[in-house]
């Protein structure tokens, strides 16, 4: 099973993360951690109109959490905000090619999506309370 998890692409994103680093004056910045593992992820976004024009993440933790974050940033960069609203747990697991994780490790894979959704909650808080609520509810299931 480990052979299926720790494939080349996961190790590549773990060791050479895309879009990793700080961002000056982000429109949204949010942090969360996984108390079980101690994985940590920060997401920073620039939003113009309805589009994510720039995305960066910072973090530390296991290969699954960090590779998943790296891949997620590639997935949503340049996309409209609505695409984040619609993202599901299965989208992420399929994207990173890990559909067979146990209940403990699945949290690692989904931490970055949770952080991103919480960031959107912050962004929509005043602008669109209904969307904020949906995202908040979504993030609880991750």
């Amino acid at each position, binding site marked *: 099973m480990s052979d299926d998890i720790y494939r080349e692409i996961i190790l590549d994103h773990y060791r050479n993360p895309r879009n990793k680093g700080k961002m000056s004056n982000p429109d949204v910045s949010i942090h969360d951690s996984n108390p079980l593992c*101690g994985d940590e992820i920060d997401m920073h976004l620039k939003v113009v109109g309805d589009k994510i024009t720039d995305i960066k993440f910072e973090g530390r*933790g*296991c290969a699954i959490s960090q590779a998943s974050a790296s891949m997620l940033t590639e997935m949503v960069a340049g996309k409209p905000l609505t695409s984040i609203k619609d993202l599901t747990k299965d989208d992420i697991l399929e994207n990173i090619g890990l559909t067979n994780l146990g209940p403990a490790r699945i949290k690692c894979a989904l931490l970055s999506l949770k952080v991103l959704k919480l960031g959107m909650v912050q962004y929509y808080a005043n602008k669109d309370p209904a969307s904020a609520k949906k995202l908040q509810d979504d993030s609880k299931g991750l």
Partner: protein
Amino acid sequence: MMQKGALNVQKIREDFPILKRKVSGGKQLVYLDNAATTQKPLAVIDSIHDYYMNYNSNIHRAVHQMAEEATLAFETTREKVAKFVNARSTEEIIFTRNATEALNLVAYSWGRSNVKKDDKVVITEIEHHSNIVPWQILTTEKGAKLEYIGVDDDGYLKMQEYKQHLDSNKVKLVSVTHMSNVLGTIVPVNDIIKMSHERGIPVLIDGAQSVPHMQVDVQKMDCDFMAFSAHKMLGPTGVGILYVKKEILEKMPPFMGGGDMIKEVHKYETRYNDLPYKFEGGTPNIADVIGFSAAIDYLNDIGMDRVREHEIELTKYAIDRITGVKGVTLYGPRNVNDRGGVVSFNIGDIHPHDLATIMNDHGIAIRSGHHCAQVLMERLDVSATSRASFYIYNTKEEIDKFIDALDEARRLFKI
């Protein structure tokens, strides 16, 4: 009847049915997470079963036969515990839910009535969260200070810092672990207690990792309080033990009010029960306390010196083998006489949780994470470590399997 010579590990293993278990699709279980909790011998499981099957009753008050049997079994455990750590009397032994509750009992009862504004409580950087957070709560509430004894790069406490704290004349309590659950460091508690007592300061020892693995004598050590846990020494979960010197316990206010801790209750006042019942409000965990009795018998039959010898041998073997693995960083003292059967490490850039997943594929249960010691993780400048920890039923062959799995992890991560 105490046995002699090296442990007969194969015979011991037969007493632990769970060790026959297969995990991860048919792999033989290798259980190396004993610092978290140990497995239970059949004798412990049977004794809990026997209680529920044959004499389940509440204790201390009823006069019917089963209640008397249950009370006797419960109080016999207290006698065995007192003897096991060489307390002066059973009055000094309080049952709690776990070691955490035992530590909190001291913080809430003794701490609240003795620690005042600007006083200091001294702990160390290697403490488990359960010996940090209660003191943060107490010192914050009282406007007191929490001070740390640092740890050096080899995993030893900086005794000079300890002396400096004591010399500040503000210290009200010293609370230290006897053995680090991460580094394995055995702390020089005798020196720590002596230095503290010279200044009239009481000492609380967190014995959660030491009492299960070596002979601990509270009178020789002369600690004022000691907390430990049954489930880390073959016993059931849900049973913690607090030892307190009687003269201190007599002056402590109760922790939890309720049934069993009283003599008389009137509308506006209560006369509390005698020691130790004054500190055991409510129906206790009767079945598991009784089960703990069988665990103590089992350890006494083996003898704690032999438990310690076996673990020294395994730890020495594990350290020798693991230091030969490329990319491994090992934490804690190198001298096995200064450490318990706990081996914490990191390997290359493999995160401990990834390593634990790979180990699990081989049927090997190890711990990964911050081990409830985030203050120490910050000191070591790591977010997590992997930890293998041993007990009486572990073998060198199991350590070999563990090393093979480490090699497999290196292959997957190309280290």
